[in-house]
């Protein structure tokens, strides 16, 4: 008999009628207000972590997201037990998040343009990447390849999921294999690194976007566990391994506040479009025609290609206190 998992959509880990203390500036923030600022502190700009579903809602054209493969479910290939058993951790995470695993992928439009999007959820066992997360990233990439539409991955992960052992390690290969094919086919890939993006996720797809965007102050690093475990006793400078650190070290193209992230990606999609046939693309002057996608027919949900905006203007209210949208941007007409 099937056990019906008590999936419930995670509304809000912060009840709307209560207050949250900002870890950035210690201000008490009214949750309802915080929700309106996309969970960014209006006083200091601290970016709170958000769920995959919230992230998708903030990024895509209203109602355009069609989730794929929400039925993929993790198993316990090693029979792994630490202080808890892995299945227990899975069930607890599923109950807490309403997700079957730490990633959500699907097709959507942004500014009217179809995209393939995969978003990780740190709330699910630290956004760790096991077989299901790797599979979803891979399928998102393969859909982008098949449709020749941009791939957008929003990372938020502690790295590979230890409980699935080397199968988790192999997800680095699986995802990089697909991303290499995406690249070879001249299909755009925008990687968004949010707090935190560490370990094997940073050391695979997240670091190799055509454009790497990071949210301000996001913790991004590879050698998480061992540094924190004291293997290396170096004094680390302030701001070490934060988004701004990676910007100055050349691994992040742009640091973009959450309020500007959607517009930023839409602007990039105005430039990064797969040419009609991979690697060919005869005369490239002119205005860069993009082939009419077959995606609409497949998903049946896309809005018109002319729609460069969506409604949801309420979302744009209450963004006071945001500082400059993106670093190093020179002009933007």
């Amino acid at each position: 008999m099937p056990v019906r998992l008590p999936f419930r959509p995670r509304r809000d880990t912060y009840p709307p009628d209560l207050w949250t203390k900002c870890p950035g500036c210690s201000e008490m923030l009214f949750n309802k207000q915080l929700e309106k600022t996309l969970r960014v502190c209006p006083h200091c700009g601290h970016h709170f972590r958000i769920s995959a579903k919230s992230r998708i809602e903030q990024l895509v054209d209203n109602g355009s997201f069609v989730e794929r493969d929400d039925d993929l479910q993790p198993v316990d290939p090693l029979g792994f037990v630490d202080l808890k058993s892995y299945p227990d951790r899975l069930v607890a995470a599923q109950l807490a998040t309403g997700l079957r695993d730490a990633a959500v992928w699907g097709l959507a439009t942004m500014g009217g343009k179809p995209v393939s999007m995969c978003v990780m959820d740190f709330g699910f066992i630290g956004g760790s990447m096991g077989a299901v997360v790797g599979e979803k990233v891979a399928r998102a990439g393969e859909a982008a390849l098949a449709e020749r539409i941009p791939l957008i991955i929003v990372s938020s992960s502690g790295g590979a999921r230890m409980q699935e052992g080397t199968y988790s390690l192999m997800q680095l290969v699986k995802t990089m294999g697909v991303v290499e094919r995406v690249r070879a086919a001249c299909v755009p890939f925008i990687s968004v690194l949010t707090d935190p993006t560490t370990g094997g996720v940073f050391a695979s797809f997240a670091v190799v976007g055509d454009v790497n965007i990071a949210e301000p102050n996001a913790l991004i690093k590879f050698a998480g566990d061992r540094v924190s475990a004291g293997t290396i006793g170096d004094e680390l400078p302030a701001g070490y391994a934060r988004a701004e650190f990676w910007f100055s070290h050349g691994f992040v193209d742009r640091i973009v506040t959450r309020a500007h992230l959607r517009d930023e990606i839409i602007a990039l999609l105005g430039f990064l479009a797969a040419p009609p046939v991979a690697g060919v693309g005869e005369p490239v002057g002119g205005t860069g025609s993009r082939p009419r996608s077959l995606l609409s027919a497949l998903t049946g949900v896309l809005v018109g290609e002319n729609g460069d905006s969506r409604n949801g203007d309420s979302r744009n209210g209450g963004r006071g206190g945001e500082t400059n949208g993106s670093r190093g941007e020179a002009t933007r007409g």
Partner: protein
Amino acid sequence: MVDRILNRSHAAEAQADNVTAAVWAHVQQARNLKRPHTLELLKAMADEFIELHGDRLFGDDSAIVAGLARIAGRRLVVIGFQKGQDTEENIRRNFGLPHPEGYRKAMRVMDLAERYAMPVLTFVDVQGAFPGAAAEERGIAEAIAKSVGLMTRLRTPIVVVITGEGGSGGALGLAVGDVVLALENSIYSVISPEGCATILWRSAEQSQLAAVAMKVTAGEQHELGIVDAVIPEPGEGAHTDPAEAARLISEAVIEQLDALGRIPLDELVEARFQRYRAYGPFTVADRSAAPPERIGIADRLRGLLAGRANMPAFPGTRRGGSSGHEEE
């Protein structure tokens, strides 16, 4: 063996302790400093070796060696991790912990392998990439990602041999291949047992339990389909007879190269991609099992855990995916 640790009858507990001790002895064996590393193996296996140096970007990482080797009459590119034989060399080689330059050198030499039609052989024995700030800020993550990515598409056969400790992403950066072999006493894991214990048990002292739980031994990795074949070690381990160990490795590698050399490159690369594409079992939930009404979480959890018959696969799901190699 994890189950045994859970069922804490006295007999089972003793048995679990035995298992744990055996696994830990295996880990220690894999880490034995006297085990032959890449250069020692090459000395025994290769008729000729010309080491190539430098990433053409920043430096030459002595914790990863790479070059052109002739083994049993074959031209090969060989890349591997290299620890020191003594303290001085260990310091010079950063105790075998690579910086990004090591992987970038590896990629440069892999490119030569592809262009001049030489198969690639890698020797994997590394605790992990260097975890310090110097490696981090120069992009150890990027270097590993790119090396892994390159190996998924490199148009020449790749044979990987795990010779000691296959530690995490640092190892994986050189461990993507058409065939993955492992020495009998080697280990392979997604994170070091110490790291795993620190995070999951909140104590590095539980490393032994972590090693057991992660099934790190070559034999277990073979059962999981991550390792294709286990190469036996002579005597009390490879370090007791490095020449014989090298002979056994050479024999196994040449056998694989012969087989791989008969496969057209397009097929080879596609098969390699599909191998890794398939790794990691998962299931597909029964969609008819719709979410129930929302009730108290604690109650539901308790009920669920009581009613759970047997993981891995959740009841009410059909099995999908595969454990990779087993599917082939």
